[in-house]
């Protein structure tokens, strides 16, 4: 931690800060400059709150050097985490893994038809919601457990893994039988009770960035799951809320290289929610792969115009197949491959 004192801070103020630092167990490096005195504090404790020092008289700025996220930090595992789903599908390695499927499971015909086409196109994971956190309580809320059951059957038939969103800790036990990856949605990113419960699970967790969460907040949420002993955490950028309304969210592509540098966890991208518009999904998917995403989460619907949720941002199977073909050309340019 580095503390910059205000210009003209008195000796008494500086001494008080040093006194507090020494009492907190830091070794202090004092450096008196022409206008500012800078105090370096070495030996920060894990539970230390640097904001305590921002409030002291005469302090201009306090900068942390170490990150508040420890287990999620790249320093903790410099070589990177690989989430192994089995059957040779690994996230965080050279392969870009694609999860595709409808926003919500609507019927047997729908999920089987979509599963077949995305599997053919090269997707490895079938996505689909059974519990939908909709903005309106009157909108379609999802099929629940029967939807998960259909998704499992469809995935098994076409050799796919499954991912679905968990809304509440009470659903975990039931969902264990159907999903290969638990998804935590943007709205639940800071539901710490749910995150703690998922830390106890021994299945991979995909954690989506909250719509107004900073990258550091995303990593702090991952920390909750990791602290419970579940090291198979996958992060996902899905767009953040900005002043721009033309797209549903502003897809923050820069988050991909930033998170890859700060953390060892695989980083996926969801260009469907990132843009909210079907025609904007392929360009953003291509950009995400080029930016180094370890995988994609893409909404695909066999009849998007009649989808019960998020039809506007769902690709038709043909467009998805074409997108996969384009991604197969982009990935090798940065030393990656795609099935």
């Amino acid at each position: 931690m580095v503390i910059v004192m205000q210009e003209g801070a008195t000796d008494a103020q500086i001494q008080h800060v040093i006194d507090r630092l020494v009492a907190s167990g830091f070794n202090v490096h004092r450096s008196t400059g022409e206008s500012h005195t800078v105090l370096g504090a070495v030996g920060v404790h894990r539970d230390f709150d640097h904001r305590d020092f921002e409030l002291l008289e005469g302090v201009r700025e306090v900068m942390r050097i170490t990150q508040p996220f420890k287990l999620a930090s790249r320093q903790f595992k410099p070589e990177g985490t690989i989430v192994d789903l089995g059957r040779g599908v690994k996230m965080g390695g050279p392969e870009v893994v694609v999860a595709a499927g409808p926003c919500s499971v609507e019927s047997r015909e729908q999920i089987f038809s979509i599963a077949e086409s995305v599997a053919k196109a090269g997707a490895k994971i079938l996505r689909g919601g059974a519990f939908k956190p909709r903005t309106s309580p009157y909108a379609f809320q999802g099929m629940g457990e029967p939807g998960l059951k259909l998704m499992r059957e469809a995935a098994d038939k076409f050799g796919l893994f499954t991912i679905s969103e968990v809304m509440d800790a009470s659903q975990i036990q039931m969902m264990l039988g159907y999903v290969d990856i638990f998804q935590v949605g943007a709205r639940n990113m800071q539901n710490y009770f749910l995150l703690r419960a998922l830390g106890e699970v021994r299945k991979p967790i995909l954690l989506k960035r909250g719509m107004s969460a900073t990258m550091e907040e995303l990593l702090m949420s991952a920390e909750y799951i990791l602290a419970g002993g579940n090291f198979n955490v996958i992060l996902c950028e899905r767009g953040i809320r900005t002043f721009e309304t033309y797209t549903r969210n502003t897809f923050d592509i820069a988050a991909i290289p930033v998170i890859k540098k700060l953390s060892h966890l695989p980083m996926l991208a969801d260009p469907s929610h990132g843009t909210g518009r079907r025609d904007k999904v392929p360009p953003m998917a291509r950009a995400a792969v080029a930016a180094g995403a370890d995988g994609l989460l893409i909404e695909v619907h066999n009849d998007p115009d009649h989808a019960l949720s998020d039809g506007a941002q769902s690709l038709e199977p043909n467009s998805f197949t074409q997108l996969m073909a384009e991604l197969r050309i982009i990935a090798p340019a940065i030393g990656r491959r795609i099935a």
Partner: protein
Amino acid sequence: MARNSAMNLSDWRRRIDEIDKKLVELLNARSQCALEIGKLKQAAKIPLYQPDRENEVLANAETNNSGPLTDAAIRRLFERIIDEARAAERDAMHSSSGTEKNEK
């Protein structure tokens, strides 16, 4: 010193190496004093950080300064020496009391 303008680069560097050797000895002798002070502070329950004494040390250093280093430069160098002395005193205080309350 008989050595003068006839000295080349490697001569000066050798000279610096000799001075550094003495500096290390002196700094360690000083650090030994700090360790003893740490033990005494621990026994007498005096706080580790003594700003008045630190100011006195800095003022002494400036008074003794005859250049070419500026007083500000001497102050900065001594701030680092004091930082290390404080750390050494802390270690001495902990090892003499047997408590390790400030795990790093």
